[in-house]
């Protein structure tokens, strides 16, 4: 939104998506081309402000001539490309990705779209068996695991981590989309308090050796929470309101204003319920913050509602 933005001229590329002739700028991704053409492609690990990591694979599409399906979020369009977003292969893989996630992760606070996609694709997580009980997952040694208990489906269920006044980490809800790691790391905050540790089904978001957040490099900018798609990371304010059954988005209003602290001019979106700020986010589409804030902007609003 910078007022004076040098315009980069891009060549146009013509391709076919689901039988429809589509034109897209060179360098655009298939996903962008699909969205421009009004074709819905589900995404989980994709976010406009982050470089695509293409790990969830729910956005895969079929590109003629390509052996495997390709992630639409990261593959650039090419001239004369022929793309299918709803072929049997695509639908099978999408259904299975959703099914695998739903069978292993608590998606109860994931967005509505996720549940719609699960239904639309006919994913049946229950066919993987009853869920295994919660387990300790933070010290799994790479290359070794307990064999699955016969008949039970392993999940990422585990105890909620609450080790500070502002964040709740409920990794039973984590789909390992890497967004929090990217936001904490190179894509925004560059604090690198968390990363993906371990591997395979034991891969997990972790600080170094799973030390508590207050012992980690975390600076509580909340940018990880800002990008979490499933509610695995949540502000204490939201978490506690939900726990009390008082969280009600239909009663919330979102107002955009400017942070009352330093002179950078970060835009805040204040989520207000019953004249109280219950959450602070920042617009993804504003150049100053690209959705990111610091600890003061994110949490420093209590003074305005009797916190001082």
């Amino acid at each position, binding site marked *: 939104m910078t007022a004076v933005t040098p315009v980069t001229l891009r060549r146009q590329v013509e391709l076919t998506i689901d039988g429809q002739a589509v034109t897209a700028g060179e360098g655009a991704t298939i996903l962008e081309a699909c969205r421009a053409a009004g074709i819905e492609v589900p995404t989980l690990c994709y976010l406009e402000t982050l470089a695509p990591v293409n790990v969830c694979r729910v956005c895969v599409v079929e590109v003629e001539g390509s052996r495997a399906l390709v992630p639409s979020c990261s593959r650039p369009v090419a001239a004369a490309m022929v793309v299918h977003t709803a072929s049997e292969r695509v639908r099978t893989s999408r259904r299975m990705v959703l099914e695998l996630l739903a069978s292993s992760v608590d998606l109860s606070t994931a967005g509505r779209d996720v549940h719609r996609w699960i239904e639309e694709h006919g994913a049946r997580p229950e066919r993987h068996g009853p869920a295994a009980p919660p387990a300790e997952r933070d010290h799994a040694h790479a290359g070794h695991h307990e064999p699955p208990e016969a008949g039970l489906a392993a999940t990422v269920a585990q105890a909620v981590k609450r080790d500070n006044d502002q964040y709740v980490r409920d990794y039973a809800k984590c789909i390992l989309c890497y967004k929090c790691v990217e936001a904490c790391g190179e894509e925004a*905050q560059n604090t690198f308090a968390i990363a993906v540790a371990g591997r395979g089904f034991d891969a997990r978001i972790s600080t170094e050796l799973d030390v508590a957040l207050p012992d980690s490099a975390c600076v509580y900018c909340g940018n990880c929470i800002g990008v979490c798609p499933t509610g695995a990371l949540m502000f204490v304010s939201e978490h506690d309101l939900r726990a009390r059954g008082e969280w009600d988005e239909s009663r919330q209003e979102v107002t955009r204003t400017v942070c009352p602290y330093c002179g950078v001019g*970060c835009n805040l979106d204040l989520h207000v319920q019953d004249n109280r*700020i219950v959450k602070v986010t920042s617009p993804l589409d504003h150049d100053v913050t690209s959705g990111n804030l610091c600890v*003061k902007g994110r949490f420093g609003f209590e003074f305005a509602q009797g916190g*001082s």
Partner: protein
Amino acid sequence: MFGAGGGTSSYREIEETDLVVLWGSNAREAHPIFFHHLLEGLRRGAKMYVVDPRRSTSAQWADVWLGIDVGSDIALANALGREIIETGLVDTEFVRRATTGFEEYAASVEPFTLAEGERLTGVPASVIADLAHAYARADRAQLCWTLGITEHHTATDNVLALCNLALLTGHVGRFGSGLVPLRGQNNVQGGGDMGAIPNKLPGFQDVEDDAVRARFDAAWGATVPPRHGWHLSQMLEAIERGDLRALYVLGENPAQSEADDRHTVRLLEGLDHLVVQDIFLTKTAQLADVVLPAAVAAFECDGTVTSSERRVQRLRPALRPPEGALDDIEILSALARRLGPDWGRPSAEEVWDECRSLSPMHAGMRYDRLEALGGIQWPCPSEDHPGTMFLHSRLWEEDPEKRGQPAPFTPVTFEPPLDELTDELPIRLTTGRRLDSFNTGVQSGGYASPLRRPEALELSPEDMASLGVAEGEVVQVSSRRGSITVPVHLDRTLRPGLAFMTPHFPDQADTNVLTLDTWDPKSGTAEFKATAIRVDRLPGDSGAAPVPEKASEKAGVG
């Protein structure tokens, strides 16, 4: 700079520059989202030099950190300038076409050899030379600073010394090259832009300019006094002299934020009448005869603020203010009504539209445009103007007509900090912000920050050892103004002889009891950054445990 008071560049430019010089700024903690943009620049390959007495969290990202002695900024800047001239790295064409006063400047920096620079700043000569060469050779360079430059008795000269470097190398007026003062509060820039400074009317129009004043007089139906006013430090002196007897304070907390604050409190107590308009009953408000409860601007009011990149953005009310608290416009209008003129109850947009009609650099910033564009950077002279990404591009025009007034070099002299170090007061205390806190804590004290720890005197491991104090031990810290007691905290980013505190917890540790209120005559800023102190163990405390050995430096604080 060179006229209007605002940073020349946009945040986006620091992402696309080749060299960043961060001088007297710990933006990593004081301006975290600006630092995101800076980090993007580093990721794209920009080099960074950080000039700061502490190896702050920002400095830890630097390719080269120059740990200068507190208050030696002008010595360093002049040594850089001399080295640039000496090695033939001056942008001679820019200097010839777009500047004046080069010869005088060159003469003024002549004594600042590299060796002299090293002697005055503590930074090795080779490192000074390295920065001089890197800055002069960079195709694009951004020179950024904050209070580390301005909270000195030589504040304005410090800034001018940096501007001289930009002029010498042509690092101003081009995309990616500029001078970037980072603003400490969300509307410091806007306040100045709106004329809340002693010598300007809105839009940096000089109050002593008759033509300008005539337009304001006409619009306001009143006469604007044709004289410069006082800035805060001058006001405090006027109170002391008895020339100023009544004070109306809006949203400031001078009883705690001013250097040598006990002195300030005494002055405020001696006033005939003190009115304080604030959202809290601050220490200052507690001294007031009348307190006007105000709504929180950022959350409860309509209006605009202006950021460090000159971007005017909308504030919108999200919360209903508590019973009795009113929007600033309402308070001011009500006050005006009782003093005579009835302004009615204008909306924020109506006030803004009046401002646009009087301040040419804001003329194009209709509310709906601010909305649509996510804010607009001044100058924006007309409603079809997109705003201005960077200032002073005119200096690069080939046509002298378009180039306009050249930018002057301003020779500045080096004066060390006033609060001298002596055997009795051997430690230099400097101040700054921590990431999770803000100024005197009026706003930031209200939330539960997991990073927060009590205020402490931060000392180098060497000083802790030689003083025989242990982590957490409460000590007495004394300056020429006063003493406080405060716990000690080990900080490995400090060198021996350098201590650090913040002003965030005045009720627990009133740092500004120690600081010197001598201010820069040009800007009115007090010398918060350079206090001579001594540290004494409290009587009755037996021998302290030795400082624990630790291999890795502790960062993330300080």
